[in-house]
């Protein structure tokens, strides 16, 4: 007897435990197998790019906090780099080092969040998430110490940072850095060799090198596919050329590699932070910048290696106090474009895990 079957359309989201914000996946299922998958974006659109055109260059820093809300200060950083390029401002050395320190701490915090949520998507009952949040909390306490905020920091300024770090910051960070490698080892012991994790992630959702480059993926997603591309090395900004660190590269490009690359990056971040603390010079933390900045007519593209990939800001100035055009290159959106191709043919559970492994933050995708 032949049974009549028909595809089964399931909406995952906009409200769903693993949608990382407001996001809808329209999945066509054949039993458990994903036959087709459609991304429905825009639930979190706030018109930030348009809003920015009506605000001054300094006011816009606070808007960048609202993009990727798990890595706020790297957004600040990419934006101020673009403005500094546009206006030709030289940043004091101490400010550059502070930016590197803050940026690498942000990367640690963002990757910790990734591992926690990723394991939750794999079905671990919140345990890794709580461990990761315990450690993220320590980093956030340090941010609190630096700028008095815990979520929307608004710390970077055009020409430097808003104010110097307090005295107790450096010893506290050193304590954290001494502790961090041990904690990462502990997580790797629990997670990286876990049979179920390996069964769920190895060879699942393979993004080949060519496809990764074609869909203009960046960051850990690109590096997991075996492309050695890190803006910190290939186009060093700030003072990254003074540090000694490696770029972890995956070999297969599966979900496991994306997870593994991020864990290794955390170790490298700790390495960079240690060197930055040793080299941290004394001096000014902010260049003299006029209150109402009027950059000369022109355009500039500032980019950094954010925790999620190449984060870029494209600014056009018409010599007024507000940018004429303010455009973001969000790594999460461009990485997300690979999802459809990756998820088709896998089970529903895999589609969720592949989506999680791309580390998407919807605040950045929809803007």
């Amino acid at each position, binding site marked *: 007897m032949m049974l009549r079957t028909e595809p089964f359309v399931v909406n995952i989201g906009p409200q769903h435990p693993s949608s990382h914000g407001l996001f809808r996946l329209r999945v066509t299922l054949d*039993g*458990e197998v994903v036959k087709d998958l459609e991304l429905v974006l825009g639930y979190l659109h706030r018109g930030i790019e348009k809003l920015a055109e009506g605000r001054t260059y300094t006011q816009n820093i606070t808007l960048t906090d609202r993009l990727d809300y798990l890595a706020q200060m790297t957004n600040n950083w990419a934006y101020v780099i673009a403005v500094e390029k546009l206006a030709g401002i030289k940043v004091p050395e101490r400010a550059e080092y502070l930016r590197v320190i803050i940026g690498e701490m942000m990367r640690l915090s963002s990757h910790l969040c990734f591992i926690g949520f990723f394991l939750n998507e794999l079905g671990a*009952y919140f345990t890794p998430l*709580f461990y990761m949040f315990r450690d993220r909390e320590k980093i956030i306490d340090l941010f609190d110490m630096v700028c008095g905020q815990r979520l929307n920091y608004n710390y970077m300024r055009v020409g430097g940072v808003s104010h110097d770090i307090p005295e107790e910051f450096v010893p506290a960070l050193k304590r954290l850095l001494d502790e961090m490698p041990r904690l990462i080892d502990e997580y790797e012991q629990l997670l990286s060799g876990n049979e179920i*994790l390996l069964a769920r992630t190895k060879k699942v959702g393979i993004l080949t090198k060519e496809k990764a480059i074609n869909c203009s993926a960046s960051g850990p997603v690109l590096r997991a596919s075996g492309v050695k591309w890190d803006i910190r090395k290939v186009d060093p900004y700030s003072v990254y050329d003074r540090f000694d660190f490696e770029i972890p590269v995956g070999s297969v490009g599966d979900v496991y590699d994306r997870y593994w690359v991020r864990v290794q990056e955390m170790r490298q971040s700790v390495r960079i932070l240690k060197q930055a603390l040793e080299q941290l010079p004394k001096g000014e933390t902010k260049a003299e910048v006029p209150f109402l900045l009027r950059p000369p007519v022109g355009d500039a593209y500032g980019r950094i290696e954010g925790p999620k990939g190449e984060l870029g800001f494209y600014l056009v100035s018409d010599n007024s106090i507000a940018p004429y055009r303010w455009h973001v290159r969000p790594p999460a959106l461009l990485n997300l474009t690979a999802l459809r191709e990756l998820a088709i*043919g896998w089970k529903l559970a895999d589609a969720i895990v592949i989506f999680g492994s791309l580390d998407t933050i919807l605040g950045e995708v929809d803007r």
Partner: protein
Amino acid sequence: MTVMEQFRNWLAGAMPDWAAYILAFIVGVVAILIFALVMIIVFVYIERRVVGRFQVRLGPNRCGPEGIFQLIADAIKVFGKEDIVPSKGDFWVHFLAPIVTFVPALMIFAVVPFHRGAVFTDLDVGILYVVAISSISVVGIFMAGWGSNNKYSLIAALRAVAQAVSYELPVVLSVVGVILLTGTLSLNKIVEVQTIPLFLLTPLGFLIFFLGTMAEINRSPFDLLEAESEIVAGYQMEYSGMKWVLFYMGEYGHALAASSIITTLFLSGWKGPLLPPFLWFLIKVLIVFFIFMWARATVPRLRVDQLTAFAWKCLLPMALINLVLIAAEVIWFPEMLPWMMVVVNFAVAGVLILLWSRLFALGGGRVEV
């Protein structure tokens, strides 16, 4: 003679036989219900606190000393909820599903020996009864998934059926090993016959039974029916208020029943030195439940095809080999020293597990569409 029979005879001295029979029956049922419900509450409390500790947090500790009244607060909240039936759902199927899921968990306790002779009915086919009753609850889950008219629930319902069909076989085969060793189907006699705990004599059977039961009661890592990251709440999606509580209690009721059965079959039930037998029974049940909690707090979830593959390719062949091994030992070496048997069976179990972990790897699984 069991405690129930003694009680009935004692009552029969004062009243007609039929009245004694009914009264003894009611008293027994009430006692078991109280035990099961109290233990379910204790389990829920313990799980919330212990999993909290696993997750570097405290767990509920505000309501009463050490948070023991938290459940009462939760219960009051849940009783006040509106009972919602999906407008396009099947009312009767939706209504009956929680009952069909919860009641079998309680029915299992009819044959569980809690103490020396303390068993509600000492059925001669106790194990068959347990196997039969424990597979009814999956019907309730399927009814819930079907009657809710919700796509997530339907996926969960189909997964439930696949899971139950796959794991029933290895579980039953490993139970046959126990029957061969003890020579009886009555749970009461199985405990009495066990001079050393059976998990030592049949380690592989114990492991298979443990994993299979974990899958049957949908504990993590086999909790695909309520896989939050995929199908949100699964079959419980459209349930609220009292019906949802029945599912919740059913989940812990099945965990309690499974722990009791594992204790009875493999951990020599109420037997133990010094402490009173009933206390030993409780301690062993809690140890088994602790391992359930431990697994839940530690490991991620398997995928649906890996789950069934694990049952068919891993547990089932091992259960068959285990059965043949025990049958051979029972037939050809009946006077084999128990400790000799322990050594041989542990060695065989170790070799088999090593072999399977080398030969058999889960993973991959893309389907061309």
